[in-house]
């Protein structure tokens, strides 16, 4: 094989993707940090780099304004702020990275919850001059609520506090105090002192902080392994689509297409179909035109069963003896994302995976201050960015697990029946 051919194979086999959420307040230097990651991994292309150099010069900066690498929309360039979730891509020899850059102001809760829901690692930024502030509490609260397994606390702008170890330690111990209050204790937290502007401990090890012997941000990300980022649960297989080709060659083919969540499924497994509770066995597992013995977690496969049973979109296959809750009501932590209020009695569509049911707000237990202040408030409605415990009644049962046991089968979105917009996210208790 030619050397190019060999190289090609390693690229193809790589294709391991790590999604990262970022959280920081305005001016904590989030865009600069991302720009620095891109710059030092040589991911900024010549034309983008030239554009950054040109604009930085026009603005009269004596350094490169990396935030320009990420702030995409016209309004953002005009106001110098980030207003929506942007996705940034870069890769190293080891893996590909997707960063969800979420803004730190007005709709921050909504955007952070959204970004965190699709990410496996979160980076929380702290300005070393300001230390742990109320915003930090919120950022941590949300990443903990979303049960992100791996969180990096990047203490930024170390250059502006003379790379002081005392300052770093003080901020670290303030943050550790917060950690005692978190609900999801198993979450792994790593502290790294950085200067995004000067490039200390982002990709390259800092020469200015000899007292820090830990890893750089990129080193940390490179070492996060796939097995470490997903919580293993029980296999759930929501039916997305029924494939019936009705061709001569595949006359009797009746395949259930979907993605496997939580655990793996094997040929021969005894399964139960929900909601009918009919039992059968897995006959074949297909990915495209090939048969496999095992459907691994998060793979999009097509399953056929030994018996002819009726299944349609929204139904679920689970292993016998491993049933989820089958209920017409539940209580969930809701992150509200709409300007119209959520009030008791309101009706919404609950989209739970690929299943949709009509739901009515039965009761708002209390609003949670997402800052570990421990202050819960009695409210009669929820506004944009509110987080609260809400009880729902459904028009038919859904098949769910608690969010803490199953990230996929324990979450849902709320859809407004009038506007069709996605107005909230929920995590079942």
């Amino acid at each position, binding site marked *: 094989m030619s050397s190019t051919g060999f190289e*090609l194979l390693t690229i193809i086999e790589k294709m391991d993707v790590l999604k990262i959420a970022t959280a920081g307040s305005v001016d904590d230097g989030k865009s600069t940090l991302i720009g620095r990651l891109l710059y030092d991994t040589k991911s900024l292309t010549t034309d983008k780099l030239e554009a950054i150099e040109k604009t930085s010069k026009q603005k009269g900066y004596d350094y490169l304004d990396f935030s320009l690498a990420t702030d995409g*929309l016209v309004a953002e360039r005009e106001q110098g702020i980030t207003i929506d979730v942007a996705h940034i891509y870069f890769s190293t020899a080891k893996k590909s990275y997707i960063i969800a850059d979420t803004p730190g102001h007005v709709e921050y809760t909504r955007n952070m919850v959204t970004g965190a829901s699709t990410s496996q690692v979160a980076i929380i930024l702290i300005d070393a001059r300001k230390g742990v502030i109320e915003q930090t509490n919120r950022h941590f609260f949300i990443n903990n609520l979303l049960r992100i397994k791996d969180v990096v606390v990047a203490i930024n702008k170390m250059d502006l506090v003379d790379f002081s170890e005392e300052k770093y330690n003080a901020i670290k111990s303030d943050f550790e105090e917060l950690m005692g209050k978190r609900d999801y204790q198993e979450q792994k937290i790593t502290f790294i002192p950085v200067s995004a502007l000067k490039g200390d401990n982002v990709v390259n090890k800092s020469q200015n902080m000899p007292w820090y012997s830990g890893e750089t941000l990129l080193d940390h990300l490179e070492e996060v392994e796939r097995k470490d980022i997903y919580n293993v649960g029980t296999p759930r297989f929501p039916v997305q689509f029924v494939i019936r080709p009705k061709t001569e060659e595949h006359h009797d083919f009746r395949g259930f297409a979907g993605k496997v969540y939580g655990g793996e499924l094997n040929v021969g497994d005894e399964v139960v179909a929900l909601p009918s509770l009919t039992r059968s066995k897995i006959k074949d597992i297909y990915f495209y035109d090939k048969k*496999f013995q095992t459907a691994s977690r998060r793979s999009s496969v097509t399953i056929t069963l030994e018996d002819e049973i009726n299944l349609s979109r929204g139904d679920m296959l689970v292993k016998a003896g491993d049933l989820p809750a089958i209920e017409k009501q539940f209580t969930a932590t809701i992150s509200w994302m709409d300007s119209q209020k959520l009030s008791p009695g309101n009706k919404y569509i609950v989209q739970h995976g690929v299943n949709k049911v009509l739901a009515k707000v039965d009761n708002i237990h209390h609003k949670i201050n997402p800052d570990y202040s421990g202050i819960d408030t009695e409210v009669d409605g929820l506004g944009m960015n509110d987080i609260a415990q809400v009880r729902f009644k459904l028009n038919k049962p859904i098949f769910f697990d608690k969010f803490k046991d199953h990230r996929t089968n324990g979450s849902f*979105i709320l859809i407004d029946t009038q506007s069709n917009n996605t107005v909230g996210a929920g995590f079942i208790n």
Partner: protein
Amino acid sequence: MKNDTSHINALENEAIYIFREVAAQFEKPVLLFSGGKDSITLVRLAQKAFWPAKIPFPLMHIDTGHNFPETIEFRDRLVEELGLELIVRKVQDSIDEGKVKEESGRYSSRNALQTTTLLDAIEEFKFDACIGGARRDEEKARAKERIFSVRDDFGQWDEKNQRPELFDMLNGQIELGQNVRVFPISNWTELDVWSYIAAEEIEIPSIYFAHMRKIFLRDGLIWSHSDYVYQEEDEEVLERMVRFRTVGDMSCTAAVFSEATDIASVVQEIRDSTISERGARIDDKRSEAAMEKRKQQGYF
């Protein structure tokens, strides 16, 4: 080796999941097919999503009339081999009907005119979901695009009022008259697409590989010498080994000098490249916000 599906990469699983959501949530989806590598990749992913059934929606090509002939030959062969339905709507017809006006001069292109033809076709066929091959890594405004992106009656994108997308739940609920643009390979990079084409041994049009072509140079870009491309008299025609990184219509796609004649060397070249893909798209050079403006007006 264990006979399981864990080797299948996350991006492919995600794209297949998205295709199945489209088929389940919409009544009249269509796959927008340009003959470029991204839309060819989409076709392969759709095949995988629905096998052994056929792809349950047609392909549609918005034809500027200024195509590379290699792309059209390729398109017709692919459609025939897979037994798919192909709809073609021509920008020339929109011009003839007086709905759009041909641009003139040095930088004239039919690229922007496609929007009208596309919106008319969506209305004609009552398509409620249009699947496209756009990727977030291509361009800054696209980095904010959702996987299911709702367009209003006028095909417009309201970037400040987008639906949040949580976990992998896709909300495709729309009102009559609205449609959704769907981007199954949103999270792929250019290198991911090329690696996939190599791994899957997917056939692509020959213009993606290095070949001798008559070209001329302008503004540091390599333009095809063709009847469709405006050329000044003092712009000298040269013959060089080039290939294309993206394939739009001839008037808006610039070539790169290359010796890469097979897929392995193309992948290698992309890896080593320091010019981003859209650096060779003349339509984006018009202004910093070129793409964002076109998207608001209903472009792909």
